[in-house]
């Protein structure tokens, strides 16, 4: 039945419309149920669209009665469907986990507005993944930035306001640069649709080579600021550490990743791989990716706050993705996109379980988390699943992405990058393992003074979403061969 073709549009429209209905509803119970229903339906619709694409192939869906280039269209292919399914699945599990704990995190007055912002946030990211029109993507970028800023400032902490201001200032610089790049590109190609620009860009490169290079540089730096490329990452640690747990899990899980997906679409679908290879951009990506991997891990070792440590680890993982982009062959790109999926589910799991651990220990500093395993064994176990994936233990997705990146760099003849990957894995061990080992195995005598220790301290039902997410982590690792093959097939058509 052809109605399945319109499911990506519904996956974008249903969360937006349910969010618009939220200011009219008075009871918090209904709002949480609405948020859960909207994210569940988005996930189901993206899954059904993926099934249709696997059977029938990619297609374009025109919005309204006008074909491109007069109208906007959605490009629904295997790559976009897998990414959208990942983002909506992570959102569904984060929303399910948050419904019991959101009053403790932000107080009960802000719940309406918070779920409204959350719906707008992930709806705009789903739109950003599917769209085939560059100005439409710009509007979705702005909507997601504003919604994420609102989510960061939801708990009324002084530090989160400064973090949100830093995030907003850096993101606005990025948006200004992207819009300027779009203006240059429109002036030489005359189109705003990604495929039509791709058709015209070969002529434009002959006549206006410098303008194309300027436009490419503006796009890369504008989107790179939002995706936390190395020296421009300074907004990320504050924004992830000082937000409340649900916001950190959601924004770190899917916020910067959708920008990376858009960057891949811009570079490879719009500019084309010959232009990217000719312009020396790959060397920039490799250099900044390696520096990000090293410096992110080095900064993470010196942190005393577990959420800041996880935030710097995110900077390092973004370095892996930029390294994969910079290697330049099909396997490198597929490995980088697989790392996007793996990191998305793993980082959400890590932030949510770190939040439960911090609640059990009474604070976020790492010293207080010693011997927390006695009070929160399930949460620490789930945290260790995520941490082992980040370090690179086989079966888990972190290992598969490091392995694929190594093979890709050997195939491209840049074998020295192997040393960087191995060194950063060792650095990852240095800061992930101590929390687990001290949590489970260190006996700290003064830890339980003055705290009433009851047996059923941890609500078992509350950890169900996290257990499902840990299962998804292991499942992504197990299915990694199929996913990387599918991505390699898609990207070999683009290159």
């Amino acid at each position: 039945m052809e109605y399945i073709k319109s499911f990506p549009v519904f996956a974008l429209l249903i969360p937006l419309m349910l969010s618009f209905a939220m200011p009219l509803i008075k009871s918090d119970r209904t709002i949480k149920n609405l948020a859960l229903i909207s994210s569940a339906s988005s996930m189901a619709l993206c899954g059904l669209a993926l099934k249709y694409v696997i059977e029938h192939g990619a297609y374009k869906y025109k919005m309204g009665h006008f074909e491109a280039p007069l109208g906007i269209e959605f490009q629904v292919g295997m790559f976009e469907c897998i990414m959208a399914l990942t983002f909506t699945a992570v959102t569904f599990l984060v929303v399910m986990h948050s419904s019991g704990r959101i009053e403790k995190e932000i107080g009960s007055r802000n719940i309406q507005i918070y779920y409204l912002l959350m719906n707008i946030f992930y709806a705009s990211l789903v739109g950003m993944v599917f769209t085939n029109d560059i100005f439409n993507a710009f509007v979705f970028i702005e909507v997601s930035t504003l919604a994420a800023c609102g989510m960061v400032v939801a708990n009324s902490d002084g530090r989160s306001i400064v973090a949100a201001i830093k995030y907003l200032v850096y993101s606005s610089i990025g948006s200004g640069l992207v819009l300027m790049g779009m203006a240059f590109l429109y002036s030489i190609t005359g189109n705003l649709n990604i495929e039509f620009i791709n058709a015209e860009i070969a002529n434009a490169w002959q006549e206006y080579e410098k303008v194309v290079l300027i436009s490419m540089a503006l796009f890369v730096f504008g989107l790179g600021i939002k995706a936390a490329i190395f020296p421009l990452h300074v907004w990320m640690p504050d924004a992830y550490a000082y937000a409340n747990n649900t916001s950190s899990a959601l924004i770190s899980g899917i916020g910067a990743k959708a920008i990376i997906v858009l960057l891949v679409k811009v570079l490879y679908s719009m500019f084309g791989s010959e232009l990217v290879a000719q312009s020396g951009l790959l060397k920039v990506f490799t250099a900044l990716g390696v520096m990000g991997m090293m410096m992110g891990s080095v900064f993470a070792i010196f942190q005393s706050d577990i959420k800041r440590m996880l935030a710097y680890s995110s900077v390092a993982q973004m370095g892996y993705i930029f390294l994969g982009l910079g290697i330049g062959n099909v396997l490198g790109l597929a490995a980088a996109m697989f790392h996007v999926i793996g990191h998305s589910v793993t980082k959400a799991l890590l932030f949510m379980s770190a939040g439960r651990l911090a609640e059990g220990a009474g604070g976020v500093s790492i010293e207080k988390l010693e011997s927390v395993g006695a009070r929160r064994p399930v949460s620490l176990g789930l945290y260790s699943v995520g941490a082992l994936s980040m370090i690179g233990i086989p079966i888990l997705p972190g290992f598969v992405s490091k392995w694929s990146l190594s093979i890709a760099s050997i195939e491209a003849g840049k074998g020295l990058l192997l040393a960087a990957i191995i060194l950063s894995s060792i650095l990852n061990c240095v800061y992930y393992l101590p929390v687990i080992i001290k949590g489970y195995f260190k006996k700290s005598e003064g830890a339980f003074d003055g705290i009433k220790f009851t047996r059923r301290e941890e609500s078992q039902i509350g950890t169900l979403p996290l257990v499902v997410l840990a299962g998804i982590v292991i499942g992504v690792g197990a299915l990694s061969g199929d996913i990387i093959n599918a991505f390699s097939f898609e990207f070999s058509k683009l290159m």
Partner: protein
Amino acid sequence: MERLIANYVEVCAIMLFGVGFMTLLMHNNMIKKIIGLNIMDTAVFLFFIAKGYISGKQAPIVVGKLEEASAYINPVPTSLMLTGIVVAVSTTALALALTLRLHQKYGTIELDEIIRLREA
């Protein structure tokens, strides 16, 4: 050089973009940062809209009889920048609201003083 003089609107737009960018980065006061952000966004709108001008054609408004499409200037950049202006207004409103909260919490809106207050 004569190309720069022929496209003087775009050159002015790029200079305004630089002015706004530097204001956003260099000043510590939040209100000045917001003003710099607005100048930067306005410069981009000016650049985009100036690219739609074709000399000798008339504005795309139906006065009397409807002409054919080649007698008007390009109306697409103008319509796109309406959306862009709304986005800039929303970002400004959010930044101002955050500045208000910051003033309530810390009593000042200079970012270097706030960072010093937090370190202490």
